C-alpha cells in the first residue's frame, strides 16, 4: 500500500509538470466545438449538384431538321427555311450559313416554314408556312413581319411576282392572291379540296397551280378564275401527285412530281408533254438555271427523293441524275453558277460551278 501511495505521488508530480507544457485547453476545446458545429451543419441534406442542362452540341443543322425551301434574294445572298421556324442565311452564295429561328408558336415551339420566294429585284419576299402563316420582308430578308392570311391551312408556296403582287397555294384546295403587298389576301378555295403543292406566275396575270391527282390548274386573269389543264378532281389514286411547277414565261413551263413524272409545255399548258425520266423517284422541285444575266435560261434542274438532282438542257437532251446525298431534297435554287438544294436530315448541298460538282454543307 505504501508503495502504491508513493507511486501515485510521483505520477501526480509528473502530471503537474506535463500540464504546464500543454497548449491552452480553451482554444483546443473551441476548435473541437467549431468542428462539431460544422459537422452538425453537414447533417442537413444539401441540394443536389447544380442542375443546369448542357447546351446543345448542334449548331447549324440537327439530324432531325427538315429544310423545305430555298431561294436567292440579291446576288450571292441565299435563304433557306424549314421545320420549326428554321431560317438559314448565306451571304456567299450558299457556301457558309448562319441560322436563326423565327415564327414562334409558344415557348420552345415554332411553326414550320414551307416556302420562301423573293421578287425578281430581291428586296421583297414571302415565307409561307404552317397553319396559314405568312411572313413578308421588304429589305431582302433581313426582317420578316407576319401578315394576316385568313386561313389555317398550310401554305406550301407563295410566288412573289412583285412587291405588291403574290400568289399562294396550299392544303385543302387553298389558292390565294394579294395585290396590295399582302395586307389583304383573297382566297380562291377550290371545292375539290385538293392539295396544291406549288404555284407559278411568270407574270401578274398568268399562273399555274399543281397538286394531287396530276392536277394542273391555270389562270389567265390573275387568279380570279382557275381552269384545269389536267386533273382537277379526286380521281384514281394511281395518278401521280405533281409537286412543283415553273414557267420561264407565259408559254414555256415544266411540272414535276411523284413517280418521276416530268411534264413540259411550250404553249402555255394547252398541251403537256411527258418526258421520260431517268428514274421513278419523285421530284419535289424544279428551277431554271444557266442563263446569262437577263437572258433566257439554258438548263432545268430538279431536286427529289433520295438526294436526286436532275439536270437537263432546255433545248433538249436526256435528263441526267446526280445524288450528292441520300436525303430527299425538297427545293433547289440557282443564282448564276451558285446553286443550293435543301432537304431532310438537315441537308444543304451547294455548287459553285453551275452544278458540275456539289458539296454537302450539312446533313451527312
Amino acid at each position: 500500500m505504501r508503495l502504491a501511495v508513493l507511486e501515485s505521488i510521483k505520477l501526480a508530480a509528473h502530471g503537474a509538470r506535463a500540464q504546464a507544457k500543454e497548449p491552452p485547453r480553451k482554444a483546443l476545446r473551441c476548435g473541437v466545438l467549431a468542428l462539431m458545429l460544422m459537422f452538425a451543419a453537414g447533417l442537413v441534406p444539401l441540394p443536389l449538384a447544380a442542375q443546369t442542362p448542357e447546351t446543345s452540341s448542334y449548331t447549324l443543322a440537327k439530324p432531325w431538321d427538315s429544310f423545305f425551301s430555298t431561294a436567292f434574294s440579291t446576288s450571292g445572298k441565299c435563304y433557306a427555311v424549314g421545320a420549326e421556324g428554321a431560317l438559314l442565311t448565306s451571304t456567299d452564295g450558299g457556301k457558309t450559313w448562319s441560322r436563326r429561328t423565327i415564327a414562334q408558336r409558344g415557348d420552345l415551339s415554332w411553326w414550320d416554314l414551307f416556302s420562301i420566294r423573293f421578287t425578281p429585284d430581291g428586296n421583297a419576299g414571302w415565307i409561307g408556312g404552317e397553319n396559314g402563316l405568312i411572313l413578308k420582308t421588304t429589305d431582302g430578308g433581313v426582317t420578316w413581319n407576319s401578315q394576316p392570311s385568313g386561313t389555317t391551312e398550310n401554305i406550301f408556296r407563295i410566288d412573289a411576282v412583285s412587291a405588291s403582287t403574290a400568289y399562294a397555294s396550299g392544303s385543302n384546295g387553298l389558292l390565294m392572291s394579294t395585290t396590295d403587298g399582302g395586307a389583304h389576301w383573297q382566297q380562291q378555295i377550290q371545292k375539290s379540296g385538293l392539295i396544291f403543292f406549288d404555284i407559278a406566275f411568270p407574270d401578274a396575270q398568268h399562273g399555274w397551280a399543281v397538286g394531287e391527282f396530276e392536277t394542273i390548274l391555270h389562270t389567265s386573269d390573275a387568279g380570279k378564275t382557275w381552269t384545269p389543264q389536267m386533273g382537277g378532281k379526286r380521281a384514281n389514286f394511281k395518278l401521280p401527285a405533281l409537286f412543283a411547277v415553273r414557267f420561264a414565261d407565259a408559254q414555256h413551263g415544266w411540272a414535276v412530281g411523284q413517280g418521276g413524272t416530268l411534264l413540259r409545255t411550250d404553249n402555255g399548258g394547252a398541251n403537256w408533254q411527258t418526258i421520260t425520266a431517268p428514274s421513278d423517284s419523285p421530284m419535289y422541285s424544279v428551277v431554271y438555271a444557266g442563263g446569262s444575266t437577263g437572258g433566257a435560261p439554258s438548263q432545268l434542274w430538279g431536286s427529289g427523293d433520295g438526294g436526286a438532282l436532275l439536270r437537263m438542257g432546255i433545248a433538249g437532251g436526256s435528263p441526267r441524275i446526280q445524288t450528292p446525298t441520300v436525303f430527299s431534297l425538297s427545293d433547289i435554287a440557282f443564282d448564276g453558277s451558285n446553286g443550293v438544294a435543301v432537304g431532310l436530315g438537315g441537308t444543304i448541298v451547294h455548287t459553285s460551278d453551275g452544278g458540275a460538282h456539289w458539296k454537302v454543307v450539312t446533313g451527312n
Partner: protein
Amino acid sequence: MGRFILRHRAIIGIALLLITGVFGYYASKMAIGTSFIDFFPKHHPYVELYHNYERYGGAQRLTLMVQVKHGDIYNYKTLRKIQDLTYDVDLLPDVNHQSIRSLGSFRVRYAVALPGNLVYKAYMYPNVPADPAAIQEIKRQVFIHRLEMRSLVSDDGRSAAVVASFYEGRLNYHDVFYKIQDLIKKYSDDNTVIYAAGEPVIRGYGYYYLPLLVIIFFLSDGIMILILYLFFRGRSTWWAPIITGLLSTIWGIGFIGMQGYEFDPVMLVIRFILTARDMSHGIQWQGRYYDELENHGYDKMAACEVTTTLMLPPGLLAILADIAGIVFISFGGIPSLGHVASSGAVWLGGSLTMVFVFQPIMMSYLPTPKPLPARKEKRKWFTAIENKLVEFPTKPGLAREGALVAVGVLIVVGFVAGVRAKIGYTEPGTPLYRHNAKVNKDINAVRQVFPLDEGWLIVRARASTAISAAYTPDMLAPEVIRLQRDLGRYLLQDPEVVSIISVAPDIIEPYNQMFHYGNPKYLGVPRMPDDVMGLYFLFVQGTAPGEAEEWINLNTNDGILRVLLSDHTYKTLNNVQARLAEFIHRRQWDPALKKVEIVYMGGVAGLYAAANDVLYQLDFINITFVLGVVFLFCAVVYRSIVAGVLFVISCIAANFAAFIYMRIADIGITIDTIPVISLGIGLGVDYGIYAVSRICDECAEGKRLENAIVTALRGTGAAVLATFSVIVGGLAPWVFSPVLFHNEMSVLLIILMSTNVIVGLLILPAYIAWARPRFIFGGVAEDEQRKETMAAASS
C-alpha cells in the same frame, strides 16, 4: 448478469441451441439469387412509375453488338449472322418476344409511298438478300433512316445491335447468361466480334465468378482462423470464437431463408463483414476470459462470471452501435438494403447472444484451459515499439497534442469529402466489376456505338377515353403528338441523349409524309385530330399482336416516349431530369398539357435516378442516426454527456477517412457501397468502447489514469489488435476479388479498420489522458475516486 447466466446455464444453453436449430432449418432453405428491382427505393415515384408501366418493357435489357473488324456489316455473311442471332435471341428463356429488335427483325420497318400505294418494308426479312445491289439498297435505306436506326446500326456501318428485353421477376440470370455466352461463341469469327451488355449480363457475371468468390470466402475464413490460433497461442479452447461466430451466422442466414430473401453473390462481402464482427466480439470475450483465468487462479466459473459481467456492457454497446449502423440503411425504402438491415440486425443480435450468453456457457462446460508456458523474452525492438505505442497517449508533448490537432484536420477534410461525395455511378459501365473486366470492356465497346440505358417518359391522358370512330382520344390529339415531338427534340440536344423513340417521330410524322405522296413538307404532325387517329390506326393495322402497345396502350390512355441514353452516370441522369423539368416548366402555355400530363422517369434510367435521389439523403440521415445512437448509448452507459460527445467525435474522425478514400478512388455513394459505409461506422466505434471501458475498469480498481491506460492498452489493446488482425487478414483476399466492388470495399474497410484502431487505441486514450474527463473515474473527480478506492482497499 454473469452469475445469472451460469446459474441457469443448462436451460439457457439448450434454448439457444434449439433456436439455432430452427434458424439452421431455414438457412438450408435460403436461395442464391439476385432481384434487380430490389436494389431501388420501392416507394420512389420513379420506381412506382416503372412498376405501373412495366408493360412497356423492363430494365432487363440485353444488347448484343455484332461488330466487324474490317469493312462493314453490309455483306451477306454478316447480315446473315445478324438475322440468325436475332432468331436465336428470340429462343432465349424468359425473353419478351415483342421486344426483340434488330436490322433483321420484321418489327423494324420503313414505309415507301408509291402512286396509289403505301408499302411497308422490313430491311431484310424474311431473307437476307445475296445480291450485292440489294445489299447496297439496305445500306442506303439504313442511312436514310439513320435517325430511327441509330439504336440498331452504327453510323459507320461497322456495328449492328440485337436488342431484347426479358421478363422481370422470372428471369434466371444464370441460365440466360450462359446461353448468351454460347451465342457469342457461335457467332464470333476472325472478322466478327460479339459484345454483350445489359443487366442480364452484368448480374450473370456474379454466377460466373461465384466459384472464385467461394474460394476467396474460404481462404479469408482460413486466414482468420490461423490468426486466431496464433493469437491465442493454441490454448485448448482457442476455437471458441469460431463456434460462436458460426452459430450467429446460422441465425443471420436462417433469418434470410425465413424471410424468403435471396442471397446475392455480389453482396457476399457484406455477409463476410458480419461474420468477421461475430468473431471479433468473440475474440474480445475470449481474450478477457484468459486474462481473468489468470487473475482468478484458473477458476473457470469465476472467470466466466467476471468476464461476462465486465464484457457485457461494452459488448452490448458495441453491438448496438453495429446494429444501429445497419438498421438505419433501411430508411431509404430500398428493399435490398432493407433485407441487409433486417437480416444484419438479427445476425448481430445473434452475435450478442452467442458471444455474451452462449460463449460463457460453452466455456463453463469445457475443460479449463491450462496456463501457457512462460513466454520467451520478446525481441528488444518489439518491446521498444510496444512501449512507445503504449506510452504515447500518456506522454504529454508535441507528438500527442499534434496527433489531436491532426485528428481535427482529418475531420474537416473528411467532412468536405463527405459533402462532395459523388452520388450514383461515376463512370459508365458497371462498378461491380473491374474496369478491365470483360463485362466492362463489352459495355464500353457497346456504349461507344449504341445507347444502353433507357428512360421512360409516360404521357398520360388526364381524362380516361375509349376508342371510338367518332372521337379522337386525347392521346392522339395533334397538339399532344406535337408536344411529344418537341420534347424529344429538346432532349436530343443533350449529347448524352442518343435517340428518342416515340409515336411522334417514329409513327405519325413518317406516316403523314408517306400518306401524302412522300412529300417532305408533310413530314410533320397533321393539323386535324382525325388525320392523326387515321395514321395511327393505319400503323396499328400493319403490326403484330401486342406490338402497337409498345407505343400507346390499347385504350389509348397513355403512351411512352423512350429516351435512349449512353449511360446512367449521375451527370447524365441529372442532366436529363433537369432538361425535362425545364421543358415542362416552359411549356405550361401549351393546351396539350391540359389534355395530358408527362410523368417521368421510368425505365432503367429512372430506377438509377430514383436510387440517386434517395442515397444522398440516406447517407446523411444514416450517419446522423448512427452517431445519435452512439451518443445516446455511450452517454447512458458511461453516465456522461462528455463520453457521448467523445465517442461521436472519435467515430467521425475514424470514419471520415472513408469519405477521403472514396473521394480519392472516385467511388460514389451507391446502393452497393452504402451498406459497407454504414457498417463501417458501427464497426469502428467498438475498438474505442472496449479500450475506454477497460480504462474505466482499471481506474475503478484504484490505478492512476496513466497506469490504467497502459494496462488497458497492454490487455484490451492487444485483443483489439488481434481482432483487427483477424478482420484485416480476412479482408485481404477480397482485395484480389474479380469483383471490383469487393476489391474497393475491402480496401475501404481495411482503411476504416486501421483508422479506427489508431483512434481507439491511441487518439481516444491520448485525449482521455490529456482532458481527464470525469466519466472515466465514475463521474467524480479523479482524486475523489482514488481516495474512495484507497479507503475501500484499506478497510
